[in-house]
């Protein structure tokens, strides 16, 4: 009888312990959350912050302003993901666009994907909008520089796959659209050592 009661209690405890519960906490977006070891928001933020401060302080900006007496116009091109993970490179480029626009010293124009809709809208305005509000055709701002780049990674792991070293290198470049001259090259390296714990049983 004593064993039966003890077994029931133990079983009850196990059942209650196994019940899945979801707990959600809002945390500061700038807080580091390394869960799987894969590329995450912290990596994207680290890259963006370093690239932005580097791009806005390097000589290309002043040189352009001196030569043309106006802020440069930048278009975001393709930042290729050449790593072994699915990385949304737009997180980085959008951060850079935001920093450029907010700094007031670099103008940013819509990327080739974005402008399709805008061009379509302008085209339709010619037919449907009032004359006073209709926007003119062929008034787009031509870009002086294009931001391009790539992210690549090198992975090394132990035979038991418990320790994994991942080395990411992010290259961003500003290329003069007229001359193909590269006026700024930013590079950020991130190296991660991932120790996988035997967390499932």
């Amino acid at each position, binding site marked *: 009888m004593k064993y039966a009661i003890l077994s029931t209690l133990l079983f009850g405890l196990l059942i209650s312990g196994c019940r899945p519960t979801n707990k959600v906490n809002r945390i500061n977006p700038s807080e580091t959350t390394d869960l799987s070891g894969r590329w995450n928001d912290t990596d994207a933020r680290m890259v963006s912050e370093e690239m932005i401060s580097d791009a806005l302080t390097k000589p290309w900006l002043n040189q352009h302003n001196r030569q043309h007496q106006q802020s440069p116009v930048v278009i975001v091109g393709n930042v*290729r*993901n*050449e*790593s*072994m*993970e*699915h990385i949304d490179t737009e997180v980085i480029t959008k951060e850079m666009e935001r920093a450029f626009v907010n700094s007031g010293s670099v103008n940013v124009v819509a990327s080739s994907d974005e402008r399709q809709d805008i061009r379509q809208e302008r085209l339709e305005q010619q037919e449907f909008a009032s004359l006073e509000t209709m926007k003119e055709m062929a008034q787009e701002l031509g870009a002086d520089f294009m931001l391009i780049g790539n992210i690549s990674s090198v*992975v090394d*792991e*132990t*035979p*038991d*796959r*418990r320790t994994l070293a991942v080395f990411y290198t992010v290259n961003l470049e500003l290329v003069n659209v007229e001359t193909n001259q590269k006026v700024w090259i930013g590079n950020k390296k991130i190296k991660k050592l991932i120790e*996988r714990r*035997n967390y*499932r*049983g």
Partner: protein
Amino acid sequence: MGAKIIINKAGFHLFYLAAVIFLSGCHAYMLDDAQHDLRSSFISGNYQESSKLLQEFEHKEIYKSKDAVLKNLEAGLIHHFAGNFDSSSVFFDNAETLIDDAYTKSISRGFKAMLVNDNTLVYDGEPYEDIYLNAFKSLNYVHQNNWEGALVETRRMAFKMEQLDIRLKGLAEAFAREDTTGKVDWHSGKTNIQNSAFSHYLAAILYAKTGKPDDSRIEFEKLAIALREQEKINKRSPAKITDLEKIRNPHSYNVLITAFSGQAPIKKQEDFRLWLNGENDNSFYVKFSLPKIDLYKSRVQNIRIVTDSLQKSDLELIEEMDVVSAEVYKAKIPIIYTRSLLRATIKATGSSYLASSVRDKNKGIGLLVDVLGILGQESSEKADLRGWQTMPGKAWMNVINLPTGINEIEIQYLSASGSILYSEKRTIEITEQTKLGLIESIYSY
């Protein structure tokens, strides 16, 4: 009185253990049947039915949480061929993560898992399954015009192939570390392949199409190495690298045609039963079950495409996935066999020792324990026959250039005599903007 209690307790524990082992063995046989049914359903081409069947098996708990890798692999491929590429990628992502977790876990358990029937363990996926899930994920991304995503998958595939030997050696080393008997030589076999022609073929095309001729050239060179490696193990002659030069010129084609034939290798059980002589004239019974892998013999010997302008061309046999799978599995066999033999011996000597101790007190009950021991071994020893059932056997590919407009392509699966075993028509719309369209087909017989 004391002896009677001991015997009763021992009898009870044996009976309880036998019941548990019998039930777990029973589940493994149910899963074998379910796998067979799923394979039959999939090869018929009714993917909705296959999806329903898989859900039904999950609902009936035939695919348990320990079989989650399998369930995700099957669902991934069923959704792939049903055209649900997003869902397919999600299932394959799950499978890949679970394989990763399970591998780390299984390697840590090492020798401790020896007493448990392999079927009761979490299925950590065969190395070739881990590789080929990326092949279908990459095709999912090509279908969705996400070439960067597709290239990520081809890179993962190539990396896993290169790591294969190291990974298998790691598994053997983990068992050797945990094995305190010191009597067993834990080692893995050698694989003759370290490259996937499929991944390099696809990557060469995608790099060429994304304006990276240098990367395309490197992938093409690796493709040549992969084809040479596969020539050593292939049942048929793979494509000749000189016939594939076209893929490096991105302007010479706008459509990639991929066709799959045959089926995944079939795992079968081989039982061995022995009576061995022990100490004091005691003989004991040992049963061990080993898995072996059989290739499915596909009738398809060639695949031809016919465009609506009656232009004909053959698809190239790029990868015999079934042969590669068997080769990769071969390298794991020494580990599986050593484990099975050791486990069977431990069980046999254990039950023999228990029976002889009981026999000293009571001959009749000793005989009963002997019989129970044999029954226990019979029901608990079962080879692990779990595997990705819906995986195709052979991958055929080629590129063609189609004119703008709606094009109809007939894909003909031919026998050795050249007769059409099966054909299906696919339409594809080509516009001025089409850089690379993808037509995919499968015939599993």
